[in-house]
């Protein structure tokens, strides 16, 4: 017999933890499944184990996560750690792998709190060892207290400044920051300055980080173009053009970042509708004001619903918990709305700064529709030129190019090529991103061994020995 819960939550980041704690408080039976051995998600990764020194490097916004991990623990919610969810089916049976064994959980409702992924940044050389996402650089610091010496940060956005400032504090300042946003972007962003002022705490933090980076004399090159990573078998240098001049900065480690995008894999596997969010330049699920999708019983909260950051994720997770509690008669609709009002105000405050940030730090154009020779599918090593050639052979969407040339067929399931393939096809066929569409996502959401699969087979148990 499987456990049947009122609610299963996938992901123990801020949205998942906050939703779980509130749902449990309101009387729901809840199971949280998360891939990591400890709660926190990527933003608060391993926050409970971080030493005080690491806390100082990473800052108060990071250590604040302990408030949520503590609430999760206190709630008594069933938190299954190191659980890799690979299928969600049939309203709802969730199949997952834990320490080499398959298992399942059943629940009436599911909340996907699977967060964000780094926006793929396919530039020449981005597959070389030594090239990582900026998020990876942060995870190294958060979870392992490992910092890269003499690294180069490439791209655009607040996360790039945050990691630079953290590396300065760790005593390993980056060798350079190669930034893709231009003065023009900043000027265009100023039309959103009203919102930015409402989001003033974020602006103030941003300015403080920039000051730290400046004090550490980290060279910054803004408006960089023609960026590539060079090296034989590993990263050896970053080359780029700045103010019309070719530059080359030797380094062994490169951190890339030009925004994060919703991780939509699980939602898509459940048939949730997604639409293109132009300001965020990514697909986002279609949700009501509580985070419920058009697939009955499927809720989504946090960055997976559209990028809003950790605090916004927390409020959205709680809003979803309120609706679920009301639907299951744990809460009157009046109480639901009364409890939701302050959360909605706080959420709006969190999101106020986004239009400014989206405009000031747009994605790097040359990495959205890369040059023909650039690898865009890391798993199957498919180039941008390959995708364009399949468009010429009649491919209108990513599922056709997947069949034609394997982009998206590898173990990452298109997580790091999907948006690029959509952009390339939209461009080549003169279609919108919505018309072009996205990969059909199917189980397994993550690879699973055949023995684990076979062990769940009811008809031929003995064949699976």
């Amino acid at each position, binding site marked *: 017999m499987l456990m049947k819960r009122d609610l299963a939550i996938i992901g123990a980041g801020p949205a998942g933890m906050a939703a779980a704690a509130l749902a449990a408080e309101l009387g729901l039976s809840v199971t949280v499944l998360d891939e990591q051995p400890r709660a926190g998600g990527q933003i608060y990764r391993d926050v409970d184990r971080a030493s005080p020194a690491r806390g100082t490097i990473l800052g108060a916004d990071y250590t604040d996560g302990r408030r949520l991990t503590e609430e999760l623990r206190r709630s008594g919610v069933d938190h299954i750690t190191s659980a890799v969810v690979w299928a969600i089916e049939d309203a709802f049976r969730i199949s997952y792998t834990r320490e080499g064994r398959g298992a399942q959980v059943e629940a009436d409702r599911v909340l996907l709190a699977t967060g964000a992924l780094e926006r793929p940044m396919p530039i020449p050389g981005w597959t070389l*060892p030594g090239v*990582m996402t900026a998020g990876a650089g942060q995870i190294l610091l958060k979870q392992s*207290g490992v910092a890269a010496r003499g690294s180069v940060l490439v791209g655009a956005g607040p996360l790039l400044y945050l990691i630079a400032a953290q590396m300065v504090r760790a005593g390993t300042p980056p060798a350079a920051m190669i930034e893709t946003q231009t003065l023009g972007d900043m000027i265009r962003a100023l039309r959103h300055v009203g919102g930015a002022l409402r989001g003033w705490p974020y602006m103030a933090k941003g300015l403080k980080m920039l000051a730290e980076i400046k004090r550490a004399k980290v060279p910054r090159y803004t408006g960089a173009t023609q960026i590539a990573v060079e090296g034989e078998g590993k990263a050896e240098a970053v080359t780029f053009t700045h103010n019309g001049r070719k530059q080359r900065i030797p380094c062994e480690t490169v951190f890339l970042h030009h925004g994060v995008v919703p991780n939509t894999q699980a939602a898509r596997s459940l048939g949730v509708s997604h639409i293109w969010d132009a300001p965020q330049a990514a697909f986002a699920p279609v949700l009501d004001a509580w985070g419920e999708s058009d697939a009955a019983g499927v809720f989504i909260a946090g960055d997976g619903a559209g990028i809003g950051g950790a605090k916004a994720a927390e409020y959205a997770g709680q809003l979803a918990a309120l609706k679920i509690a009301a639907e299951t008669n744990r809460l009157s609709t009046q109480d639901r709305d009364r409890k939701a009002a302050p959360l909605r105000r706080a959420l709006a405050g969190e999101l106020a700064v986004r239009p400014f940030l989206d405009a000031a730090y747009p994605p790097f154009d040359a990495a959205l529709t890369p040059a023909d020779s650039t690898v865009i599918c890391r798993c199957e090593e498919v180039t941008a030129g390959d995708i364009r050639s399949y468009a010429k052979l009649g491919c209108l969407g990513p599922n056709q190019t997947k069949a034609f040339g394997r982009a998206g067929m590898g173990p990452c399931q298109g997580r790091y090529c999907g948006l690029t393939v959509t952009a390339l096809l939209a461009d080549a066929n003169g279609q919108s991103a919505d018309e072009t569409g996205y990969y059909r996502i199917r189980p397994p959401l993550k690879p699973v061994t055949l023995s684990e699969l076979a062990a769940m087979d009811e008809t031929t148990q003995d064949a699976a020995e």
Partner: protein
Amino acid sequence: MKPASPFLELESAPRVDVTWDGTALSLPEGANLAAALLAAGVKVFRHTPVSGAPRAPFCMMGACFDCLIEIDGVTRQACMLEVTEGMAITRPQEMGAHANET
């Protein structure tokens, strides 16, 4: 001799012995395996089955599958594992002759 690594361990932790492709390494117990291997100077984790290109950790959050290694004959993501005493880690089996077959 420990190869040079651009990655610096900011804190010290008790270490355990593991093997990486047959070579003995001493890694912090309970550390993230991918991070620990990077800090130990491992630069190339695997070669792709498509072109043989070298790869190493990229996302550190279980999404990209570039840090694949092999333990007990099973391909695993190094960034999703923690270091334990005696771990025998190898590069994933490579396609070898197969890649040239039609």
